[in-house]
C-alpha cells in the first residue's frame, strides 16, 4: 500500500476530492497546513508572506493504483492549464500495514 500526501491550494480542494471520489478513492483525510515552497513565499510590496495556507490531503491506496491517483490529483489541482507556482506537491510513501478498527482486521 502507498500513502499519498498531496499539498494543494485550498480553493482546489473540492475539485481534487471530487476527482478522487469519481476515480473510486472516496476515503481521504484532510488537514489545514501552512507552508512555503522553492519560491520562498510570495513578496507583495515590501512584505514577504512565507506561511501560505494549503490543504494536506492524505489518501492510502493499493500498490497498483499510484499512477491513476497521481494523474487525477495532477489534473485537478493544477491552476489554469499550464499550472502556476504554489499549486502544491505530491509525496508518496510506503505503508506496510493498514487496519480497519471496526472490523478489527488487516486491510483497507
Amino acid at each position, binding site marked *: *500500500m502507498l*500513502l499519498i500526501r498531496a499539498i494543494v491550494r485550498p480553493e482546489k480542494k473540492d475539485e481534487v476530492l471530487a476527482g478522487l471520489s469519481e476515480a473510486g478513492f*472516496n*476515503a*481521504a483525510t*484532510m488537514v489545514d497546513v501552512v507552508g512555503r515552497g522553492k519560491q520562498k513565499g510570495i513578496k507583495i510590496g515590501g512584505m514577504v508572506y512565507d506561511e501560505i495556507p494549503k490543504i494536506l490531503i492524505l489518501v492510502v491506496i493499493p500498490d497498483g493504483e499510484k499512477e491513476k491517483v497521481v494523474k487525477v490529483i495532477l489534473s485537478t489541482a493544477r491552476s489554469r492549464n499550464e499550472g502556476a507556482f504554489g499549486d502544491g506537491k505530491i509525496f508518496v510513501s510506503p505503508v506496510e500495514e493498514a*487496519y*480497519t*478498527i471496526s472490523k478489527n482486521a488487516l486491510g483497507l
Partner: protein
Amino acid sequence: MKEIMAIVRMKKTGATKKALVATGVAGFTAVKVIGRGKLVTDTDELEKCREKLLALGLDEVSDAGDTETLVTSFLDGSRFFPRRLFTILAHDEDVPRIIEAITTANRTDYGIGDGTIFVLPVADAVRVRTGEAGEAAIW
C-alpha cells in the same frame, strides 16, 4: 522503527490516550483532521444507520424535511467528519501491541467510522535534546 498513524473518533481521544499510556508508549502527536472513509455499499447496513440517526430526534432542532436531507448527506459518503490523527513512533516489536490497544479502545457499536490504523516504515529519528539517533531516539 515504525510510524503508526491512527485516525480515531474525536470522542475517543481520551480513551486512546489512556490506552497508549497504559501500553507504554513514550510519546505521540495528535492533530485535528477531517476525513471520510470508503463508500459503504451494503444497503442493510446503511438502512440501520439511517434508522439510528433518525431516532436521535433531530426533528426538534430542524424541520422534518431538513432531517431527511441531513441524514441522507451523512450517509452518501461525500461528507467529511472530524477525526483525531495520532502519530506514534514505535520499535518494530511493539507495533502489534500498540495496534491491539488502539483497536480495543476505539471499537464502538456503530462500526462504520471507527477509524483506520496505518503502519509506515521510518528511515531515521533523532532526539533533539541529546542528538542520539535511530532506535535510541524513540525511548
